[in-house]
């Protein structure tokens, strides 16, 4: 290859774990990775929504600096490492943190088998939760006829907030409170979901990675062994995720 050709590639590509990955201006490292089906673990990111960068599972080393891939712009020549033992160990710890700060009793959870937090645990080989359990006491909101909010399992990923605000255009949710007291709140005078205009068909009602927002009366509708993560890894399902595109709506 000529020097010029080399430069041309450099100008719009990065490497991820040694693999050359092209990108378009404005794309994040995550965008570039997903476009070529490289999986960088993530929970609070969902293509099509503005990235938030709160879960920190997508931490990578970019030119030696730890950055969140979902909110860091790809830059020509950037050398990114992601699938390293060290980063995966950190991701495992972060996943364990998410487990212990909430109340996750998978055997009694409707989301089990279809839960992305659980699937992250599987992907990272999590055998136990390692840290001391926080056992928080959080409110359940069963005031809505079709959508249930069980805050025990909320991982504060902000996906429902963004989905409701930016896609559904209803702005039903927000995160309130500081530090460990952070919690999901509902944008109504009563603070109850029943007084909101959320509907089961809304993206916000469906996007929750865990069993915190559930569509009622749909529990356990797929048998064990046929649920999403009985058959697939989160690294596979992540490749097909995208908020419904405008064209899909029309079609």
């Amino acid at each position, binding site marked *: 290859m000529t020097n010029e050709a080399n430069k041309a590639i450099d100008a719009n590509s990065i490497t991820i774990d040694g693999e050359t990955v092209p990108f378009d201006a404005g794309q994040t490292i995550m965008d570039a990775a997903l476009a070529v089906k490289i999986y960088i673990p993530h929970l609070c990111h969902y293509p099509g929504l503005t990235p938030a960068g709160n879960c920190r599972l997508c931490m990578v080393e970019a030119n030696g600096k730890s950055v969140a891939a979902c909110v860091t712009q790809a830059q020509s020549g950037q050398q990114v490492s992601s699938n390293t033992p060290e980063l995966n160990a950190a991701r495992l710890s972060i996943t364990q943190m998410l487990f212990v700060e909430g109340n996750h009793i998978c055997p009694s959870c409707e989301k089990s088998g279809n839960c992305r937090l659980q699937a992250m645990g599987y992907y990272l080989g999590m055998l136990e939760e390692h840290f001391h359990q926080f*056992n928080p006491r959080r409110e359940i909101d069963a005031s809505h006829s079709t959508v249930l909010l069980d805050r025990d399992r909320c991982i504060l990923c902000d996906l429902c907030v963004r989905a409701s605000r930016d896609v559904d255009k209803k702005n039903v949710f927000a995160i309130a409170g500081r530090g460990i007291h952070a919690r999901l709140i509902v944008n109504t005078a009563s603070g109850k979901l029943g007084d909101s205009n959320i509907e089961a068909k809304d993206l916000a009602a469906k996007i929750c990675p865990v069993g915190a927002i559930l569509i009622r009366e749909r529990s356990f509708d797929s048998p064990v062994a046929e649920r999403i993560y009985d058959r697939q*890894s989160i690294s596979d399902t992540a490749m097909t995720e995208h908020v419904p595109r405008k064209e899909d709506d029309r079609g």
Partner: protein
Amino acid sequence: MAERKLKIATTSLAGCFGCHMSFLDIDEKLMLLNDRIEFNRSPLTDIKQCSPSDIGLIEGGVCNADNVRVLREFRANCTILIAVGACAITGGVPAMRNYFDLRECLEEVYLNGTGVTNPQIPSDTELPLLLDKVYPVQEVVKIDYFLPGCPPSADAFLQLLVPQLDGQKPQLAADQLHYD
């Protein structure tokens, strides 16, 4: 060659015996194992005291003082101690009481609950005293291996035990890793 049989002790703390049932589910392979292992203290035998063993399997979390004593007895006697199942590893379903104060729980059950006759909180010294919360076993003693699942499948038990027969480290296959 007459190999020494691997001694295995098992117990169920705050659990439902589901993990034990699943263990027994290994069916005919249990017969194969039978040549290589023997059971020490276990609900499957009637041995009441754990003596030195190679492997201890703990089902269930730690909810009372008695659980702590049994768990310590196992730790003191077992070379390798394994937490088996969601309850042992995370507290599991019994840990749902952790969202309430112990006092609230007891008052609800023994004093204020529906259908309570002769309301009083039992305080007999024969009864194991409850801990304020249900704890995962690894918060109380050192655990060597974890076998998640509610319950872990029979195959998972095999994957855990068979390598150890030959002194190998067990490795759970990815498709056997589940929390429910």
